[in-house]
């Protein structure tokens, strides 16, 4: 069970920081930082720079992403921004515009 959940009807404009994980099903504008996993669910809208341990995107994300471990863009995801992580997957059906930096 995720420690922090931004429900589908909720909009947060500002800064969210957590030492644990976070699931976004609603809207976040600003900045999103988590020590553990960040999940942006299908239907969610995030216009923010995201820093996390790992990141799974199924929804819409505009912003730059930095993950300690990995970034997975699922089918249906729509991502505009630069992605920096050691491991990155982009599933068939994901839309992505930006650069990928795997630090090679």
């Amino acid at each position, binding site marked *: 069970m995720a420690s922090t*959940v931004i429900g589908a009807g909720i909009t947060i404009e500002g800064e969210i920081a957590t030492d644990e994980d976070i699931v976004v099903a609603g809207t976040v504008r600003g900045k999103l930082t988590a020590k553990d996993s960040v999940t942006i669910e299908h239907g969610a809208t995030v216009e923010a720079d995201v820093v996390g341990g790992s990141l799974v995107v199924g929804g819409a994300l505009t912003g730059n992403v930095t993950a300690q471990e990995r970034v997975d863009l699922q089918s249906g995801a729509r991502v505009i921004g630069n992605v920096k992580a050691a491991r990155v997957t982009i599933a068939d059906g994901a839309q992505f515009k930006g650069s990928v930096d795997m630090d090679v």
Partner: protein
Amino acid sequence: MAQTRTATGARDASDARIGSAARVRGRIQGQGNLLVEGHVEGNVTLRGDLTIAEGATVTSEAISAQAVHIAGSLEGNVTASGAVRLASGARVRGDLQGSSIVIDDGARFSGKLDCEFDLPPELGGASQGEARGRASNVSGARR
């Protein structure tokens, strides 16, 4: 909107939860219930119930929601369309407005209460229950 996953742990797709390790600085608005276990700085506007759990801190100029249940620490004014409850252990500084207001034993509160209610005719002095009362300027700590 249908909930596609149960892994979120939320009771409902529109429910939200700010975990104990989380800090939010900014504006929170929307539909659904919100449970705050962590720290929130900023205004909260909800069409749903707000719960400020034990150990949580909320600093806000304005909070508006349906029912508001406070067991943690709150600095700010509350406008509730439903009931407001300050549970034992709550620390609240600010003005409260709600359809009903409950302050449990052990809650600490400093601020104004605004809760319209009908006075019984023998107290209000008016017949036919026309009298209305209003509690205000309540300040104090219980325990």
